């Protein structure tokens, strides 16, 4: 399945709660293929950035210990309904993705 990001962002009293789910294999690089016995190369998200109206509010660095199809929930101040939130990630192979959504 193609890599995807799903975002749910809502705000209450100016405090935004952003939940996101990223479709990513998060391969540790230590697992062996059950059929060939070869080590499956590491492939995981290294950095996730959360932006509010274009401004970075949080940067996360991840290792391969974050579960497959990673989940992240985060909160920040100064949000209003209709504001934009952007989640972007870059993985160790240099692949990246970015998705924008509006706060409800």
């Amino acid at each position, binding site marked *: *399945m193609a890599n*995807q990001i*799903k975002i*749910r962002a809502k705000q209450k009293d100016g405090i935004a709660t952003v*939940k*996101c*789910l990223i*479709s990513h294999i998060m391969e540790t690089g230590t697992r062996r293929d059950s059929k060939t016995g070869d080590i499956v190369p590491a492939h995981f998200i290294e950095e996730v950035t959360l932006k509010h109206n274009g401004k970075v509010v949080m940067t996360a660095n991840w290792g391969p210990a974050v579960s*497959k*199809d990673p*989940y992240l*929930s985060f909160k920040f101040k100064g949000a209003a309904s209709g504001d934009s939130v952007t989640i972007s990630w870059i993985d160790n192979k240099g692949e990246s993705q970015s998705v924008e959504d509006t706060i409800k």
Partner: protein
Amino acid sequence: MKYLLGAACVCIFFVQTLQAADKNMPGISPAEDQKSFVEYFSKRFPSVPFQEFGNGIYALDEGQRAQWEEIEQFPPYEFAVDAGKALFETPFANGKSYGSCFENGGIGVRQDYPYFDSGSGQVKTLELAINECRENNGEKKLKYKKGDIAAISAYMAFTSRGELLNVKVPDEPAALAAYQDGMQFYYEKRGQLNFSCADCHVQNAGQNIRADSLSAALGHPTHFPVYRSKWGELGTLHRRFGGCNKNVRATPLDAQSESYRNLEYFLSYMSNGLEINGPGARK
């Protein structure tokens, strides 16, 4: 003459079924079986409300429930539901789509599966119906355990959430025979470990098997297909049947084999009245 022969066949079949049943029990009564089945679990777990059984082990174990609720905040099967919707709505080469094969365009119909198809004399599961739909429209069959078929099934279940499972066993010999065949499969010990499905999920539901806890049979089919953390992806009920069989060291049967379809038929009938809550997230 043809009719006579047909009727004779049916009669013989009927008598055979009755004889088989006679040897063991007073008669086949799915309704009574279900009543005893539900009573058994409500006595075993008096504090668990009926609808909760659809949540499997999470109805019985608080610690695991908390983790499951955390995962349900944003469950990993959502990607599969989206993918399933896209597949479901994409027309076949002939211009038709899945919706044309199902009642109500395939939306909110999960609760009526599996059903007994008198015409073919077989139990039809949702996955079987999906593939028949493809074949009737000139498309290739999909593999039954995971991937596209699980995604389509997940989307169809998702549109049926909250509907009550409503599996019917018509009062005809072949349907009763299929039901009883599934029932026998459920209670028969198999594999080198000599365990039946029921040994774990009826008699020992809520107990631990090594470090793992056993869910109750009641409610098992309501939440499939499931995204299992162990699989890291979505899988169908028959994939899970195979896994359970393997666990007791019995060779799994093919997904959608007659025996597994009959098993699903029995198991689903036992859970009648529970809400469809698929797709689910499980460990």
